[in-house]
């Protein structure tokens, strides 16, 4: 019998590896030769890499009766998106960009609410302002979904705002790749129209995209090496991506052989007839870049997939939302104040 570990902590649902089969279509867009491609150095002109992430938190589910007698559910929540800007050549200190929490009171569409400001007891600690946002439905989970959607939208806007444009026409050589954005998770639908050089990095492998004869390469990749780029169309045909795998670190003998491997994706036009040079450039440097950004197991349980800047960003985002306990207490005090018991 042979047993090997999923390297990620057991309380992360699904672990790093789940592997369900993929029903969409995959086309070899770079080369039909299925073999490892070595990492290339990061070109000089790429001077900025942004690592973008988002986080959200539901702080209190509420039942609201507005001034017009309407009743519905809602939720006090907060989300934050932010970026770490760094130079891939290490020529300057990394910095946090735009890490700022937004607070919303997501509520059933029937309600009419004003912005809610929660004042602290101690005037030294500032006020919390919650803006009302209507949800699509009266479903009790709707406020959470609304919050999630707001966060993802903000994340996407932020990602594309930073990145260089990706020219999708063969003749288009307007812009060199000077600024690249790494975004945590798969890319969102609709982002393609924004056109930035945004790479989604998928830390877990939930879907097995590759056929059985090709999967073996993932285990054989050496650190920094990548697979050829594929053009991928989802089963519904609504989203298309360029995708490739890259290995960040070697797998220890006790780990499953695909640990340390990450899937990357970039937006692709629906018709697989052309591989933009920028995408190939990004794929070429991805191994070098991600090996540099990858964390170590003793510092991060999700190493190396959870990148060093992401870990820092997650911490900063958590901090910008403030202590959950204190916010919950503030909400309770506010409600107590409304009912005249405080």
């Amino acid at each position, binding site marked *: 019998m042979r047993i090997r570990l999923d390297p990620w902590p057991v309380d992360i649902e699904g672990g790093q590896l789940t592997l369900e089969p993929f029903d969409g279509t995959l086309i070899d867009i770079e080369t039909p030769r299925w073999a490892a491609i070595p990492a290339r150095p990061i070109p000089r002109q790429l001077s900025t890499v942004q690592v973008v992430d988002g986080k959200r938190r539901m702080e209190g589910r509420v039942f609201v009766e507005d001034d017009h007698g309407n009743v519905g559910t809602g939720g006090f929540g907060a989300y934050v998106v932010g970026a*770490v800007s*760094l*130079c891939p050549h*290490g*020529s*300057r*200190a*990394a*910095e*946090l960009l735009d890490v700022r929490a937004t607070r919303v009171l997501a509520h059933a569409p029937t309600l009419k609410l004003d912005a809610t400001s929660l004042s602290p007891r101690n005037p*030294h600690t500032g006020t919390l302002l919650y803006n009302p946002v209507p949800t699509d439905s009266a479903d009790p989970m709707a406020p959470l979904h609304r919050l999630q959607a707001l966060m993802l939208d903000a994340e996407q806007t932020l990602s594309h705002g930073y990145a260089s444009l990706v020219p999708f026409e063969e003749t288009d050589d307007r812009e060199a790749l000077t600024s690249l954005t790494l975004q945590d998770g798969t890319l969102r639908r609709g982002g393609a129209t924004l056109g930035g050089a945004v790479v989604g990095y998928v830390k877990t492998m939930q879907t097995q995209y590759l056929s059985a004869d090709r999967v073996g390469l993932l285990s054989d990749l050496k650190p920094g090496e990548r697979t050829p780029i594929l053009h991928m169309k989802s089963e519904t045909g609504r989203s298309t991506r360029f995708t490739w795998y890259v290995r960040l670190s070697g797998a220890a003998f006790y780990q499953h052989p695909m640990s340390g491997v990450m899937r990357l994706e970039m937006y692709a036009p629906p018709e697989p007839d052309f591989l933009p040079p920028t995408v190939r450039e990004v794929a070429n440097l991805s191994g070098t870049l991600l090996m*540099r*950004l990858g964390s170590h197991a*003793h*510092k991060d349980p999700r190493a190396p997939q959870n990148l*060093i*800047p992401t870990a*820092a*960003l997650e*911490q*900063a985002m958590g*901090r910008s939302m403030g202590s959950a306990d204190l916010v919950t207490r503030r909400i309770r005090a506010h409600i107590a104040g409304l009912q005249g018991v405080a």
Partner: protein
Amino acid sequence: MVLGTQDVTPVSFWFAVLPGASVQLDDLVAVQTRKPDGSFVNFYGIVDHVRTRHEGVTFDSDVQDVAAGLLPASVSYAARVLVTRVNPENFIPPQPGDGVRHARGDDLRMALSADKMGEKAFPGGLLADGQVLPINYRFVNGENGGHINISGISGVATKTSYALFLLHSIFRSGVMGTGASAGRALIFNVKGEDLLFLDKRNREVESREAQARAQKGLPDHRYALMGLPVEAFRDVQFLAPPRPGSAGAAIVPHVEQRGEGVTPFLYSLREFCARRMLPYVFVDRDASVNLGFVIGSIEERLYRMAQGADTPYLTVDDWQPDTEQVLDEDVRFDEMGSVRISTFAQLVAYLEYKLLDANDGEGDRKWVGKQSPATLQAFIRRLRGVQKHLTPLVRGDVSAEQAARFRPDPLKPGVQTTVVDIHTLSATAQMFIVGVLLRDLFEHKERVGRQDTVFVVLDELNKYAPRDGDSPIKDVLLDIAERGRSLGIILIGAQQTASEVERRIVSNAAIRVVGRLDLAEAERPEYRFLPQSFRARAGILQPGTMLVSQPDVPNPVLVNYPFPAWATRLDEVDDLNGRAVEDIGEDWLH
């Protein structure tokens, strides 16, 4: 801004230093906090700890990622403040987020309680940022407190230099007011001939001060900042023991470097007896109780013997000195058949005769009392031991006029500072001189009262007033420490280790100063007045830097003080008196 992640208390708090700002140890800062009723409370304090660290990172090795530009982190620069004053005295804590600013001008005056000192402040040195530290003269001259105690390792702590700087500051800053000319100093020079050039200008002071000014970025040289003149001590008399030699030789001061201006000092044998100096010859009075009795009774006998004449020598008529002894001790018989005792050795021989030899070895019963021969022998043995050292100092072979001229008098009219050079003397003789001079001074002040403050500068207190043991000199020092301030005698004492000095002497000092300390020494209870962080720093203080603690300011303050304006060595003496060579040449040509 005051930090909220550390406890904020009315006595100590941390603050964050914003980017672009800088704070160093010993900076004085001020904070204002607003009470709920709208009134303000001001906190003043001194920075005793500064640190930077990466914030937002978890592992020590993260510093590599931060430096490589991968990991965003902020540098947290924070400083801890020990509060020295709260005004009004309203001991609430400051609030996190309150602004912290450098104390300057009025803030500084408040931080150091200079407002309480008013006219009675004199400069005690410069703070790290070039501002002047005021010291409350009321705590020096005995009005509210008195005495200054300085501790530190020899050579590095420059205790004497700081003591002299304080004297210079007291004498020349005008803090003594109208009585400025009345203040006097009695300085004991215990090592080298360092202090024998106090009245000469130092030729290096200009260049050293210019250098320090450039190094510290001060607006002016340090004397000017403190409003003190750059000048040597005025109206100084130098006293040195006479060069040991055969009796009758010329009396010249025993100094090597300084050729003129040093007066030899000595006591006549008669004074020795009449003014009861015998106990000061014995350093360890408690060696045996009986010995103490012997000393007491002989002291009384000598006192009586000295009455009735005023020659420097003594005459006795009940001694037939052993002729063998006589030869080498040069005893003279005068016309009346009595014997003249004109050297200390002869006095010892006489005492030996009276105590041990007379009456066929029984001794003169009146002198012996009921003491056992063993005790008497011990007494004589000790006297013999010190005889060589005291012979040049206590003598009867001088004329009455010489005895009067060479009698040490620190209160001589026209003299402000007296330097008594005792470094050439043996330990016993040093003790004798210090003990006798201080005793005389104390008795004089007991008669005339506290006007004319006398500052006594004495290094190596641990030698004169050790923690253990008992001696007449220690008694005098204790008297000065405990009652001296009401009589106008101020002890500026120094020692390497305060832990080895009589506790009552150190604890009576209102102003305590610490230079470089041995770290083990710094942990002793005598230094508890230093907060922990200061005790650690006392181990790294450089020469010219001192920690000064005074009653008005609850925490010690680090000061540096200027290079001496007076020469401390022969080669520092400014022969040209501060003028350029060309100017002197001009004088000669005209």
